[in-house]
């Protein structure tokens, strides 16, 4: 099967009909695949004002244009839908092996419409596609669901993508999980899947993928794999310590959000850092995704006997530093629980952190704890207890937390203590200390997010070059470039970590050899810009206003109180006019 055969499965869960369509292959050149093409289709096919948890919303599972090839990190897929958390477009990315397996069934994309009348799963075995009853799986955790499906389909080599109880219970921070521990984590995509009574997708594929220039592609990939191995981040830092290589880097830089972003350094870092995971011998080995030369995944066994994948930097930070917790076992347990329940670790940890600040300030009454542990910073008991409660929507607080930190804080009359942008929880870098990254947070099309344009790379890590953190000049342009290139990477199916060793030209070489498109770098980046613009229009049509390109007031009114960035506040508002101009939007930030 040629990789330019864009075969799409359309599954109407209401009528139980399944059909196969061929997309216009010109769309592949203008939107590639994955995030770009699926966002285009979503924007064309749904009313952006639709209720995200209604049958009128659609959920698109889409692989990247090069997913499934033996390129460096070409195993990614995306879940694209309207988010119940933010009201914006949701485009959540995941690795593992499911995406590549889906591609090998001959399907590029699955569009789920409507709502099944009872719990259902989709089975795909090359061109044999069926909807099957999932009533016996409803309520099961992610690992058990996966094991049961592999057993009952008799296909041990199949790959499973599913939701856990959190998605079934429509938690606005529920994730879609695949290969047990990989997550399409953000923006509540798991709740959309749950709202459709869709429990899982099982894929088994046997097709081989044909490309334009096989030998040339192979040669280029050999060179790129070497480049990846020789790079300091992808070749050494990430394999050895995973993303938790960042704990001490970010803490020493004074950007490590502590106690719900009240502080920026954490004196407990050595207990929960990436180094600690190795020194305490919890790390057993690293893990790789499909066709990945990096291997940043963490396979971990705790002294308690609990085992699983993780924690990542973000997850470890959210349950650790952001909650003031310095117990690596509890932090890791909470991460494992999220993988089982199908919850976004960033949003879950940050929601507990917000609850801790609300409680310590006296805004959550004692009786609302319903005899649960006190929500005080540093409580390892609280992070484990409330993660379980929110994943199952148990109890008053569990139910509120399942809605995410903004709605929790709003319920108690103080939304200003939710560290969110467009109601999605901010990740593990304080924006007051990195001005470009702060602009990125505020303008990300899916709400609070670091990966949409990882400005930490130039502002802190020195990739591709070092920019001064407080400098404003040039930052708006850098943010746009990072955002556009990330959209390209997400649409081609590479992992974002490939952008440490690779530049735009590296991706272009692989794209042209695989597809024969013969594109230029300018045309490549124009695709990224086009995708960004389309997402912005979707959000506008959904009712999201440019005034929401803003950070919580804390970042303007409260200077960083500690560490080397002491005294810093966010100046992202000063960068907005230039950013809007670069994007071609009007002065108010409206795109047309």
């Amino acid at each position, binding site marked *: 099967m040629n990789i330019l055969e864009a075969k799409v499965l359309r599954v109407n869960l209401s009528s139980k009909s399944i059909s196969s369509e061929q997309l216009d292959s010109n769309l592949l050149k203008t939107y590639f695949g994955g995030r770009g093409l699926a966002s285009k289709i979503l924007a064309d096919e749904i009313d952006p004002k639709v209720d995200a948890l209604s049958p009128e919303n659609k959920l698109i599972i889409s692989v990247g244009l090069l997913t499934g090839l033996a390129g460096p990190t070409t195993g990614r897929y995306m879940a694209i839908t309207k988010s119940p958390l933010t009201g914006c477009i949701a485009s959540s990315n995941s690795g593992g092996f499911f995406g590549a397996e889906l591609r090998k069934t001959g399907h590029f994309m699955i569009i789920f419409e409507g709502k099944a009348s009872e719990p259902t799963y989709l089975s795909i075995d090359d061109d044999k596609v069926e909807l099957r009853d999932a009533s016996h799986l409803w309520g099961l955790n992610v690992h058990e669901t996966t094991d049961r499906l592999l057993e009952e389909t008799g296909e041990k080599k199949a790959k499973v993508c599913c939701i856990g109880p959190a998605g079934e219970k429509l938690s606005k921070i529920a994730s879609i999980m695949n290969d047990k521990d990989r997550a399409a984590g953000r923006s509540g995509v798991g709740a959309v899947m749950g709202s459709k009574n869709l429990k899982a997708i099982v894929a088994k594929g046997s097709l081989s993928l044909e490309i334009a220039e096989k030998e040339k592609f192979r040669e280029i990939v050999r060179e790129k794999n070497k480049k990846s191995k020789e790079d300091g981040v992808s070749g050494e830092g990430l394999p050895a310590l*995973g993303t938790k290589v960042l704990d001490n880097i970010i803490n020493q830089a004074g950007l490590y959000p502590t106690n719900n972003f009240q502080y920026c350094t954490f004196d407990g870092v050595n207990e929960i850092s990436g180094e600690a995971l190795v020194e305490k011998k919890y790390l057993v080995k690293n893990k790789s995704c499909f066709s990945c030369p990096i291997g940043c995944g963490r396979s971990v066994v705790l002294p308690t006997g609990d085992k699983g994948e993780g924690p990542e930097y973000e997850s470890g930070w959210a349950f650790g530093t952001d909650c003031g917790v310095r117990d690596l076992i509890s932090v890791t347990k909470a991460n494992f629980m999220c993988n089982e329940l199908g919850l976004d670790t960033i949003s879950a940890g940050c929601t507990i952190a917000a609850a801790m600040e609300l409680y310590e300030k006296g805004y959550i009454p004692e009786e609302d704890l319903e005899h649960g542990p006190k929500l005080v910073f540093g409580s390892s008991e609280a992070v484990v207890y409330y993660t379980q409660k929110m994943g199952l929507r148990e109890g008053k607080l569990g139910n509120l937390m399942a809605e995410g930190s903004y709605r929790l804080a709003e319920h108690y009359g103080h939304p200003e203590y939710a560290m969110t942008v467009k109601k999605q929880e901010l990740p593990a870098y304080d924006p007051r200390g990195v001005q470009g990254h702060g602009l990125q947070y505020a303008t990300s099309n899916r709400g609070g997010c670091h990966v949409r344009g990882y400005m930490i790379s130039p502002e802190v890590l020195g990739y591709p070059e070092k920019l001064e953190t407080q400098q404003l000049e040039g930052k708006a342009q850098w943010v746009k470039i990072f955002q556009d290139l990330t959209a390209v990477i997400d649409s081609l199916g590479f992992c974002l970590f490939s952008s440490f060793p690779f530049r735009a030209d590296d991706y272009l070489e692989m794209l042209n050899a695989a597809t024969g498109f013969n594109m230029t770098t300018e045309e490549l980046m124009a695709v990224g810009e086009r995708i960004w613009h389309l997402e912005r229009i979707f959000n506008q049509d959904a009712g999201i206003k440019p005034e929401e390109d803003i950070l919580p007031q804390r970042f303007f009114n409260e200077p960083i109180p500690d560490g080397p960035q002491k005294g810093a506040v966010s100046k992202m508002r000063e960068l907005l006019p230039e950013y809007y101009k670069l994007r071609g939007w009007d002065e108010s930030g409206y795109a047309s």
Partner: protein
Amino acid sequence: MITVNFYTTLSLMLGVKEILVDSAAEQSIKELLEQVEEIVFQKTAKRFLWKLVEDVTIRRGTIILINGRNILDSNGLNCMVNPGDTIAVFPPGGGG
């Protein structure tokens, strides 16, 4: 006294997290690190500077902080270090 802290893969490789250097005079960070390398070599028989610096250039991704400030934001390897300063040394790291 100047405190030099090693982190991430460097601390794991060397088995050393902190070196204290008794220094009364101002010196460049390059001179300090060369001095520290000799101290570390005596302890561990391992050298680390080649991982961070190539000729007179800091390798891409190397992070050297003086009191929390990245040397690349000012004079690079010519930044001056004084008694009482804390140096943090990281080989390349990244993530998401």
